[in-house]
């Protein structure tokens, strides 16, 4: 039916590009099972044993067997702390940005009001400027604001306002809102206003109409928006890097800090877990989208 479908060139290129995309990830995961602690060359898998047996930089046996480095990871306090921070930030920012973003989508799609154009444009800005510019802006704002407030209120020691979980979460909410709004707006755009008008004609007020008619129809859009916000937050490096402070390290920041110093199979174990989580999340998103038709 179409001229290029069987072209050997397209096929070959496709195979090579998929290979390019996956070879690094496969090797990354393979090295999470490496018996060598220095993780320079692959020294085989780790056999099961009652205790951890080390021989130089080689692990000869471990109660966790090939999953030795995953067990070590679970014992690593810094990693667990960073994982907790990452999830706290992601859940909080997803919840808030989904609510706020959905409200914005309703406003932009169903209402006329002052500042509408301004709102629409401001929602596009985070998408078209480099992330570092937004990160730097927020950093400049918080450092100036906090130093002003600290001196005005005479705060000292631990009471001083500083960068931390709060500033990271607020920034994540700010960069997620535009994406949630876009996704929900697309969904609202797709369906007919007449359902809502029918409900109103039948005597339902706006509140009832929203919860009984509008909300069930946009729910898949709201859920995709929430999943997107969650993934963006989990994944964010740049904005977190500039808005985080002591005690508020997230996983990507932790990994980055580690990579500048040492390379250990623990990072590979963490990466392998991360890829598996992404795998499941993408699967969930695709299911959701397919159900939306």
């Amino acid at each position, binding site marked *: 039916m179409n001229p290029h479908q069987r072209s050997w060139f397209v096929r070959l290129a496709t195979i090579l590009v998929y290979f390019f995309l996956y070879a690094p990830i496969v*090797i990354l995961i393979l090295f999470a099972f490496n018996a060598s602690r220095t993780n320079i060359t692959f020294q085989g898998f780790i056999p099961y044993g009652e205790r951890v047996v080390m021989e130089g930089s080689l692990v000869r046996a471990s109660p966790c067997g090939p999953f030795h480095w995953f067990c070590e990871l679970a014992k690593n306090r810094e990693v667990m702390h960073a994982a907790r921070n990452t999830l706290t930030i992601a859940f909080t920012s997803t919840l808030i940005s989904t609510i*706020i973003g959905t409200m914005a989508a309703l*406003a932009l799609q169903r209402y006329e009001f002052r500042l509408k154009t301004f*709102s629409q444009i401001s929602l596009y800005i985070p998408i078209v*400027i480099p992330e*570092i510019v937004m990160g730097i*802006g927020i950093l400049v704002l918080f450092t100036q604001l906090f130093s002003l407030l600290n001196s005005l209120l005479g705060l000292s020691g631990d009471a001083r306002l500083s960068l931390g979980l709060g500033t990271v979460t607020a920034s994540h909410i700010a960069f997620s809102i535009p994406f949630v709004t876009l996704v929900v707006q697309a969904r609202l755009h797709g369906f007919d206003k007449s359902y809502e008008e029918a409900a109103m004609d039948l005597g339902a007020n706006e509140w009832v109409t929203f919860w009984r008619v509008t909300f069930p129809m946009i729910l898949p859009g709201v859920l995709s928006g929430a999943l997107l916000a969650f993934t963006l937050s989990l994944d964010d*490096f740049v904005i977190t890097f500039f808005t985080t402070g002591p005690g508020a390290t997230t996983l990507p920041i932790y990994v980055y800090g580690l990579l500048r110093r040492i390379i250990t199979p623990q990072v590979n174990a963490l990466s392998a877990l991360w890829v598996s989580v992404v795998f499941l999340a993408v*699967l969930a998103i695709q299911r959701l989208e397919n159900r939306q038709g």
Partner: protein
Amino acid sequence: MLRALRENRPLQGFLLILPTLVFMVGLLIVPLTLTLVVSFGRRSPDGGVIFTFSLDNYLRLLGYERNCPSGEAVCFNPLYLQILWRSITLAFNTTVLVIVLAYPLAYYIARAPARWRTALLFMVLVPMWTNFVIRVYAWMMLLRKEGIINLALGWMARQLGIPFQPLEMLYTPGAVLVGMVYEFLPFMILPIYTSLEKIDLSLYEAAADLGANPWRTFLRVTLPLSMPGVVAGTILVFVPVMGTFVVSDLLGGRQVVLVGNLIQRQFLDARDAPFGSAASLVLMVMTLVVTYFYTRKFGFGEEIVKA
């Protein structure tokens, strides 16, 4: 009062958008304005900001340095211009390479049977959503002196009986280019796929009926109709490459300094927020100008939103 709210739709709309406006103004517009104000300031000896109005930071980016080592009042130092130029050429090269790699794959997915398409797209999304830093790490492992690539090359050389020295691939400009291409490839595949998938297949039959060969059909039908996807992908790739500092930091070491690294170092090492702010704004203006002219020339599809 509630009744007034119930009847006033503009007010309802405004109340719905209000929280968004609070965040967008508070954490986007105010910060950008403040960055502009700070960029006209000067660094204080303790790393703070002295608010003045001077264009020194921008002049410094253009190469006019004060406090020269030679003792002159003003001297020319092209360091920052070189960094800006390096960032632009790298972003350009990355974008071109990414288009070349993404196009055939996007084409293959768009023309695959419907039941395969979801799986093929899935295979693009997984690397795309795997954390940025983790993907850079994967390339650190591959490109190291003792990494897999050198190992494979060494093995091949031994088989052929050629003497082999492990190549120094990590911490070179080439490593940064490969890393950037790897990071941003999926962001080009998706929009091109979206625009290719929309093409009506009967256009191909028409082209074939009119005697066009496959190559001609590609140039006259497929390529023009997929341009919105290429344009959207270019923006999704070019803009972040211009601002990224992680790839160059981890794969380029101290060898490859881009605008992103310059900005990051001003804030974290040099503690010169005014100069860093100026660099950040120059970066923003450069990307906005490129985006603006590029979209005006080629049009703007909805692909960018879909991706």
